[in-house]
């Protein structure tokens, strides 16, 4: 831990050990604070429903392990349909995202292109317009296009984020120019260059951007809630919101009435676990891509 040094006095060493211990204590506290909400949710979801209602679960599961909440959830068609819809929106939506992002980023990276300036400004300009200002006009456009209540709306309305397009453009620009020139001189079309040369070399960048899009798709609820009236098309997050957030608010308001269904609480906890589990399980394996993506943007701001 400490490097050998001639000048280090004993008091400095002692102070350093204390410092290390302090950092360790603080970081463990931070980790506990961040994990505790997940732990309590997991614990409550498998606790005896009565102890949950009586608010006795404060750390680990209380009473005999009970999967009552999960049993109800597994038999709930809305949850499963939500799950299926979310998987569809995530996979198909991410593919749309990646396709549009690549198709925009590649021409934007070709500095000899006569539309270079136009397309770069055309894309970058949209980054400065706040989402709040666009909320109503966007809704009216989607409505005008007769896309309300269609799955297509979810897939294409948020087809590409300018930020990720610019990120990928910067990545393409870092590729050696001679490579493109050689391919062009050999008679390769732009499509061939993109498909056969650029994309095979962009695996890590595409994975990073795809993961960000994918997480966004998995977690999105607001526009799905606005665009889709038909409950059978709702993604999991919308179902979850009705189940947890709205239920909780109703409950708080008439908490004094004491008429809560015994299982309602464990069902809520179970639903949160089911919605979070896929991300929590995959996430540690793909974490390095996220970290890479977060610092990518800072290189070429």
């Amino acid at each position: 831990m400490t490097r050998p040094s001639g000048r280090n006095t004993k008091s400095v060493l002692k102070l350093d050990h204390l410092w290390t211990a302090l950092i360790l204590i603080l970081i463990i506290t931070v980790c506990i604070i961040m994990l505790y909400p997940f732990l309590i949710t997991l614990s409550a979801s498998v606790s005896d429903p009565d102890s949950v209602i009586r608010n006795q679960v404060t750390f680990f599961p209380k009473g005999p392990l009970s999967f009552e909440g999960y049993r109800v959830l597994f038999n709930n068609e809305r949850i499963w349909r939500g799950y299926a819809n979310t998987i569809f929106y995530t996979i198909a939506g991410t593919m749309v995202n990646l396709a549009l992002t690549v198709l925009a980023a590649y021409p934007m990276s070709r500095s000899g292109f006569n539309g270079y300036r136009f397309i770069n400004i055309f894309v970058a300009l949209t980054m400065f317009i706040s989402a709040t200002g666009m909320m109503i006009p966007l809704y009216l456009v989607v409505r005008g296009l007769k896309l309300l209540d269609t799955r297509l709306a979810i897939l294409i309305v948020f087809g590409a984020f300018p930020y990720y397009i610019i990120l990928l453009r910067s990545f393409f620009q870092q590729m050696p120019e001679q490579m493109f020139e050689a391919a062009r001189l050999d008679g390769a079309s732009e499509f061939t260059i993109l498909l056969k040369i650029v994309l095979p070399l962009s695996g890590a960048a595409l994975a990073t951007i795809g993961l960000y899009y994918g997480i966004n798709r998995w977690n999105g609820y607001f526009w799905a809630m606005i665009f889709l009236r038909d409950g059978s098309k709702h993604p999991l997050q919308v179902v979850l919101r009705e189940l947890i957030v709205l239920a909780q608010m109703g409950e708080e308001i008439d908490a004094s009435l004491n008429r809560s269904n015994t299982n309602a609480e464990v069902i809520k906890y179970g639903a949160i676990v089911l919605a979070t589990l896929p991300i929590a399980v995959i996430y540690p394996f793909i974490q390095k891509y996220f970290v890479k993506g977060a610092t990518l943007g800072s290189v070429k701001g």
Partner: protein
Amino acid sequence: MAKQKIKNKSLVNHRELWIMLIPVLVYFILFKYLPMGGVVIALQRYSPFKGISGSPWVGLEYFRQFFTSIYFWRVLRNTLMIGLYDLVFGFPAPIILALLLNGLRQKTFKKVTQTVTLLPHFVSYVVVAGIALNMLSPSTGVINAFRVKMGLESIYFMQESKYFWGIFTIIRIIKESGFAAIIYLAALAGIDPTLYEAAHCDGASRPQQLRHVTLPSIIPTIVIMFIIKVGKIISISFEQVLLLQNDVILDTSEVISTLVYRRGLVNADYSYATAVGLFETFVALVLVLGSNALARRMKSDSSLW
């Protein structure tokens, strides 16, 4: 010049690149530029049945309505206060977290802790709001369970206006600090290790190294991130506010964006909501452009440090 042109012509196929751009252009025109043009309905008494061409023009009527209503000061105050809370408490949090992570010597432990602190960022707002509301519940919430154990009274956290800004900020810090720390960790990783070695040889303790080596090295990053954050002070997380607020505590939890949602998408008051949204866009744009210009000047003017 002419030579350059010939060279370009042979090395880039313009037509193919434009063909490639067609879906992108269509997408941006339909879902970015068309809505931008659509903001003109803020100047109309817009009716979906009459459309933009058929709706009567009313000038700044809806802006006047908004600026003179009680909602104006309320949502402006709430938006700015939540943004200010996020700035004062939410800005230092990732810096401290990054310094703590950076202080860890054990590689595996460092990796595990970073994984843990990053996790909340990738969990959806719905789940975060769900967990938070569960934990804060007066009847079945763990926070009130602890309070009762300590002989205190249960608090109806989500029923009292005074708690909202604090609750929102705490949730935000827990959710986003780990992710925001990445940029500082990158800056910390870029510090020349020989600086530490020199400090170490001079007999500097680790707290002294933090003060004289680490902090001065990341101050440029901190300043730039601060400026960028100030630029976003009005653009607080809409989805998160919407999920946490309820009718009882609207007086502190209604912000500009949720007002746009409620008036526009719930009440179908399209023109009024668009005017409110336009006001937000304008303020946000001024702030972002101002802060970006400042950040760029700081970045290029490295002699400051």
